[in-house]
């Protein structure tokens, strides 16, 4: 009887350990995919299709992550949600043809998101500038 209880405890803790490492793995995959956005070629036409493809993948990864999280609100999930929102200015650019108006709207959306010139703000700003001035 004692052995049975110990085995159960061991298997439960192993299971939860596996799910935490599973979440970590998913989070790292998300971050790797996310970073690809900042390596997209600066060509206006290529940017939209490439961005939309990566963003779709990120949304899917986030959705699967939330299912695995089981309503736990992990810091990894919170980070992924924030990372997706930070992309809004690039999403504006990727919707249809990139015009001067869209470029200024994207810049403006990025400025609205800014607080203390953080890394994500500068990253997006640089990306907008590279695409729009190309």
């Amino acid at each position, binding site marked *: 009887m004692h052995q049975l209880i110990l085995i159960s405890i061991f298997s439960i803790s192993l299971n939860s350990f596996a799910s935490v490492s599973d979440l970590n793995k998913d989070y790292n995959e998300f971050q790797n995919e996310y970073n690809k956005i900042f390596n997209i070629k600066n060509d206006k036409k290529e940017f939209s299709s490439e961005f939309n493809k990566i963003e779709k993948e990120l949304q899917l990864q986030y959705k699967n992550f939330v299912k695995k999280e089981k309503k736990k609100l992990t810091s990894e999930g*919170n*980070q992924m949600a924030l990372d997706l929102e930070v992309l809004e200015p690039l999403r504006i650019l990727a919707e249809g043809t990139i015009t001067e108006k869209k470029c200024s709207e994207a810049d403006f959306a990025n*400025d609205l998101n800014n607080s203390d010139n953080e890394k994500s703000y500068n990253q997006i700003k640089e990306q907008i500038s590279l695409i729009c001035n190309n």
Partner: protein
Amino acid sequence: MSSKIYVFFIVLYFIFLPFSVRASVQCLSGEPGNNHLIEQFENAKKTSGITKAIIKKYGLDQIQEIQSESECSSCELNKNYIPKASRNNLQQIKKITEKKPELIFKEACINSAGQFEAVTTGEVKCPGGEISKEFNFCMTEEIYNYENAVISDFYNCVKKVTNFPLMPEDLFELYSLESGFKPHYAYSGGMGIGQLTSIYVADALAEYRGRNIITNIKKSLNKECSIAKQIIDDDLVSPPQFSDKCAFIQIGEGVERNILYTLMELANIWEKDISPKMTKFNKNNSDKENVKKAQRLSLINAYGPGGRKATLAAIRRLSIFSSEEFVEKFNKPIKTKKGKNLTTYINKINEKQDDLLPILEGKEKKEFEKNGAKSCIN
């Protein structure tokens, strides 16, 4: 000789009378005798159409009159005492008893919110725009009442022309945190009573963002918008420059513009950013009591620095929960892997409200303890 001394003292009395009257003004915060804002307000009463209209609409001149009447200590003892107003004429009584729109915040609460000094933030002297960290201007009950009336008026206007979800208690919390209702603080990150930023002013004016709200106020036939319109009319002809600090600080058309733009920008963020993101959540929780509270928390949180994207992320995270759980979790920190907190601004708002409790006294304190900022609403 003695008559000369007598005349000398009379002359001295009249020279120093104005100073002694000024010094006797009670400062609810700031340094007594440091009368820059009082003088600014007195000047606005004479020169600003907006200030005159607010004072008339809310009967603020009569509040002062009634208050100075009640300050007469022997009056209550004298059963035959007839208020000065009655003595003047019936017209005056009619004016006083005429129903005026109510101020949304209780005086005791605003006074408590103002009991702080932001020692590291600059204070602006208008119209010149001079900045110092040591001005510590005196704030009087009359100035707080005036700001209360401006917020009441513009809140009613913005509420009429938009689907603005905020309640007066939310605004009390916001202004308490941003400035403690002091109109003259400014630094690179924010200016005046609502600590407005240049990007928020630009957003409120942008064609594809907040401009429709400005247009709706301009077109509105509601009497609630008649005073706000005066600012809009001016700004549509000549948009305010954020570099002109006094355009958002000076009493007359500065602090008033600050209040209007804070409210318009909140309505704009709601309309363009937050509301579309909450559609599914609203639908899933349509029969639940806390849906409105969840919306209000989200909008307020979005007003803080970097709050817009953080709020959208928080909504993304919390929409899977019931409205009760949404509200409960939103009031706590939601930390990200890289150390950000998605609900920083709401957490700060809550901390500020906790700080107000020890300052309040008597009945107000008990009510605040029980109902929080809601107890600060008339």
